């Protein structure tokens, strides 16, 4: 029990159910159902904590205190907010497509909760170990994109539709570097399954073997989740809340929940794919340590996400698109090519794999920085050429 509570509880439940008269497959089915329910509930309830944490950390970054009235340290603030949202009126705009209007928020939440099904929390604790987990992640993201499209269209509002288009355009653009970055852990682990990828990091975390891929995945996931500096889609000063203009009360609340949860989920994914998931000292003997390591690492990455949100200014839509197609996608393609070549060459020439990949990534980073400097210089020259007579103003 001490060493592996998850298997212990699972076996106990199974024996209990078979004792009740179910056949083994039926018992597995019931356990899967209970597990799915537990995971979905845990993840959704976690949002209360996440929203509080984000507000508190952002507040400290902005040199203020944040919620501290409701409950100790303001912990119950989110509960109060949701209670308030529950009692507000759900205003359905006239002419809206009712079914799609109500379908969109749960669909958006489903798209994020579904991601947790393939994230390994501890050595024997994972929703399911499908061997196509990485593509499953992308496909669930695609459903999230669809949900936004539905929201924008079904609101019968020009600005919602426009906001939805811009959102979807940005989301599908950033899926490209994300998918390409996902190729690198696949190559290094030889499988698309998340459990296999965590196991393959026993020697060395993938963040050391492929730092650029990690940064790429992290950045493009942040854009997918709509976190700053990519949060122009819900910026009140821009397009007035974009696709969720016409949503009020809990319908809006569900979008909000899905959004925050996505930020935490992407931290969990980055940890699983690049920072060794639940790996840590003594984790094979005591598997519950794996859960603690996983949560700790995810919390650190989530902190970095909030840190970036509080520090960087928002990007404009054209900057967002240039950044993606002119920088991230070529970089992603180069990372895949360089990793593929470096790993095979290292194996062929007998060099140490970690060193070879690390050096290759370093060289690629160097090349990228040089390329950026040359690009900046050419842009500056073009700018100066177009305004040659701009003499500096006389000093007062």
């Amino acid at each position, binding site marked *: 029990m001490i060493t592996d509570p998850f298997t212990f509880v699972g076996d106990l439940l199974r024996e209990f159910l078979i004792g009740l008269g179910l056949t083994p497959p039926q018992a597995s089915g019931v356990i899967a159902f209970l597990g*799915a329910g537990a995971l979905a509930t845990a993840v959704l309830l976690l949002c209360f904590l996440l929203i509080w944490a984000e507000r508190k950390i952002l507040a400290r970054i902005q040199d203020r205190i944040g919620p501290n009235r409701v409950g100790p340290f303001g912990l119950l603030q989110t509960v109060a907010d949701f209670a308030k949202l529950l009692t507000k009126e759900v205003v359905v705009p006239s002419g809206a497509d009712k079914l799609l209007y109500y379908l969109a928020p749960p669909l958006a939440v489903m798209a994020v909760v579904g991601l947790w099904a393939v994230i390994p929390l501890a050595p024997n604790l994972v929703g399911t170990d499908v061997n196509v987990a990485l593509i499953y992640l992308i496909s669930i993201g695609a459903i999230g994109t669809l949900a936004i499209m539905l929201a924008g269209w079904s609101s019968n509002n*020009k600005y919602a539709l426009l906001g939805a288009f811009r959102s979807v355009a940005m989301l599908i653009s950033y899926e490209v570097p994300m998918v390409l970055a996902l190729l690198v852990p696949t190559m290094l682990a030889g499988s698309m399954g998340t459990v296999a990828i965590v196991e393959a990091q026993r020697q060395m975390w993938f963040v050391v073997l492929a730092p650029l891929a990690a940064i790429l995945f992290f950045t493009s996931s942040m854009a997918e989740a709509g976190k700053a500096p990519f949060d122009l889609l819900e910026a009140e000063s821009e397009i007035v809340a974009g696709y969720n203009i016409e949503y009020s009360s809990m319908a809006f609340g569900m979008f909000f929940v899905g959004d925050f949860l996505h930020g935490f989920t992407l931290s969990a994914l980055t940890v699983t794919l690049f920072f060794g998931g639940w790996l840590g000292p003594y984790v094979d003997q005591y598997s519950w340590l794996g859960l603690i390591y996983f949560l700790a690492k995810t919390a650190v990455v989530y902190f970095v996400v909030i840190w970036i949100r509080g520090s960087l200014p928002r990007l404009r*839509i054209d900057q967002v698109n240039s950044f993606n197609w002119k920088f991230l996608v070529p970089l992603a393609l180069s990372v895949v090519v360089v990793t593929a070549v470096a790993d095979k060459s290292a194996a062929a020439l007998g060099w140490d794999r970690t060193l070879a990949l690390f050096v290759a990534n370093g060289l690629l980073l160097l090349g990228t920085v040089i390329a950026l400097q040359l690009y900046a210089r050419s842009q500056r020259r073009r700018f100066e050429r177009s305004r040659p007579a701009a003499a500096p103003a006389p000093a007062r």
Partner: protein
Amino acid sequence: MSDQWLFIALILPLALFMASVPIGLSRLIGPRKSNPAKDAAYECGIETVGDTWVQFKVQYYIFALVFVVFDVEAVFLFPWAVAYEQLQLYAVLEGILFILILAAGLLYAWRKGNLEWI
């Protein structure tokens, strides 16, 4: 293999249901006082002018198209990446050729100015 998907098949509808419950609850608990002004589409406080439609911008279409091409490319590359460890160098180079051909396409789109957001 299908039983591995059972968990996913269970958690997705469950999540959908769990997210619908607060919305249903809110419809029950919240007031329901609809009036024409409240239900009208929001346009920063003024009356809606014209039909609800968005001007066609070819930009959206081009981004979606480039995305489709790169998505298909990435999907082709996934089996290659899974088999990567057991491939010889020439097989790896074939995959890289695949990538480079599409990188050329990206370069073309870039030079033609199709990656701008106007």
